[in-house]
């Protein structure tokens, strides 16, 4: 059951999106998340969705998987949509019953914002689905390296992130194992009220903490044994290289940005 967690899970593959330079991917997807808030009219939004769709197709991932990433934030989408439908008024009135007042403007706004949120989530999950955590932190370290001038220890931060990401699956597996072991001894983790459930977690959490500390100690020893002493003078096995396709992709983001701004200027806003 714990293995169902897919957020931040990497799905190996060899699609164009998988092979893209992670720095470019990071920048473009980060830019996309900002860009999604630029359009104020339906055409602009449509362009954003089309761009995302192209990305999904390029990634070669099954659509089912993409939709699964939306599931956790479904309540958020529903609540925002409802709030918009009920509280924003403008345009023609659709329903008028007692205090409920639904207008075309409200519905339009609701759909607009829901599409934005969905695109945002799909965009960011595209990044984690197609990039392995190690590559991702590697790219982050490279992109943040100018911060070294400000005496921020970029290497240490990215090493911590790598380690944290690396151990998420391990700890999930460990939790699963401990839960199985305690269930075997009759621990009831699935029923009872809130207090009972929290109490039932003690036999799982204590061994989990103990093992997390044990792993941390082992890892520290292992790193010291290999003479790890920070990032100074450390070379990389896998060098990152920008290829022509990476520049094309970067260019496409710039074009998207320009197109969205032009559309905003040319067309009237559809939002209220």
């Amino acid at each position, binding site marked *: 059951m714990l*293995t169902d967690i897919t957020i931040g899970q990497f799905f*190996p593959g060899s699609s164009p999106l998988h092979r893209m330079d992670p720095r470019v991917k990071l920048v473009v997807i980060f830019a996309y998340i900002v860009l999604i808030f630029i359009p104020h009219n339906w055409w602009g939004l449509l362009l954003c969705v089309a761009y995302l769709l192209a990305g999904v197709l390029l990634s070669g991932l099954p659509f089912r998987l993409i939709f699964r990433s939306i599931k956790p934030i479904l309540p958020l989408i529903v609540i925002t949509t409802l709030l918009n439908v009920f509280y924003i008024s403008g345009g023609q009135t659709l329903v008028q019953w007692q205090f409920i007042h639904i207008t075309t403007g409200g519905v339009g706004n609701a759909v607009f914002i829901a599409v934005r949120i969905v695109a945002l989530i799909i965009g960011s999950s595209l990044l984690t689905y197609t990039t392995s955590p190690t590559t991702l932190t590697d790219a982050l370290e490279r992109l943040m390296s100018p911060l070294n001038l400000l005496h921020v220890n970029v290497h240490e931060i990215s090493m911590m992130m790598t380690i944290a990401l690396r151990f998420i699956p391990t700890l999930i597996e460990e939790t699963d194992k401990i839960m199985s*072991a305690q269930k*075997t*001894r*009759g621990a*009831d983790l699935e029923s009872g009220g809130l207090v009972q459930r929290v109490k039932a977690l003690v036999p799982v959490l*204590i061994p989990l903490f103990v093992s997390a500390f044990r792993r941390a100690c082992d890892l520290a020893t292992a790193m010291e044994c290999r003479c790890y002493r920070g990032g100074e003078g450390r070379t990389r096995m896998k060098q990152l290289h920008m290829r022509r396709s990476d520049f094309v992709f970067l260019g496409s983001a710039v074009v998207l940005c320009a197109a969205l701004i032009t559309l905003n200027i040319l067309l009237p806003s559809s939002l209220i």
Partner: protein
Amino acid sequence: MNVLETRDLCMTYGIKTPFEKTALDHVSVGFEKGDLVGIIGHTGSGKSTLVQQLNGLLRPTAGQVLLDGTDIWAEPKAIRQVRFRVGMVFQYPEHQLFEETCYKDIAFGPKNMGLSDEEIDARVRQAAAYVGLQPTLLDKSPFDLSGGEKRRVAIAGVMAMQPEVLILDEPTAGLDPKGRDTILDQIRAYRDENHSTVLLVSHSMEDVARTADKVLVMDHGRVAMYDTTETVFSHADTLGELGLAVPAVTRVFMGLRARGIPVGENAYTVEQAAEALLPHLRKGGDR
């Protein structure tokens, strides 16, 4: 009469994801009351998946697990009762200890069964005795014990529930030879005294050879062989093809016979080997 039985048991992990993997493929085996069965197979052969199916930790994709003839998933809500009857000791069980004292940790299972305090006390002391744990250690924190002692506390925690079927996944992993021998002897003694069925998952052919009466060999999620220990270890070729080996002593015996020394039957424990070889040595050998 089989106490525990599987019928066409199938298990597939990660259905409809890129990680889909068949771990069990139509497994049908039966375990009789009082059996001590060793389960062997190389990594990824489905041993662990199989034993986790047997006490309802995993739910089969298809097929059934029968405990005393009834499907354990007939009533999913009553699965806890199944787990009390089919006990399981995981690999590195010392990693699951959590209580302040060993006594409390061993009592965790019996307490969950809803037994009376006197009954729990009796069972904790009995289980501690089975695994050779000093009564003085019971009041200590499990985190202060040595690795071998922790392992014993964890095994006692499951034995205290007195399950009809006891499953142990690699109970000797990471122990020194003496600790290993003691635990294996205690497992046998537990079986003899309670007439329960014991399943022993192991990578060590020597452990299985000296402890088990029967051996179940798994390969790619299927049952490759299931027979008495002698019969299984006499098929050295088949085991070799499955990426497994016969015990070292058996290999020595096969080598001796290949050189024309008539050492008779195969031996698969050191004791048997000594018995078979002594007459030859007394005669001064046949060569």
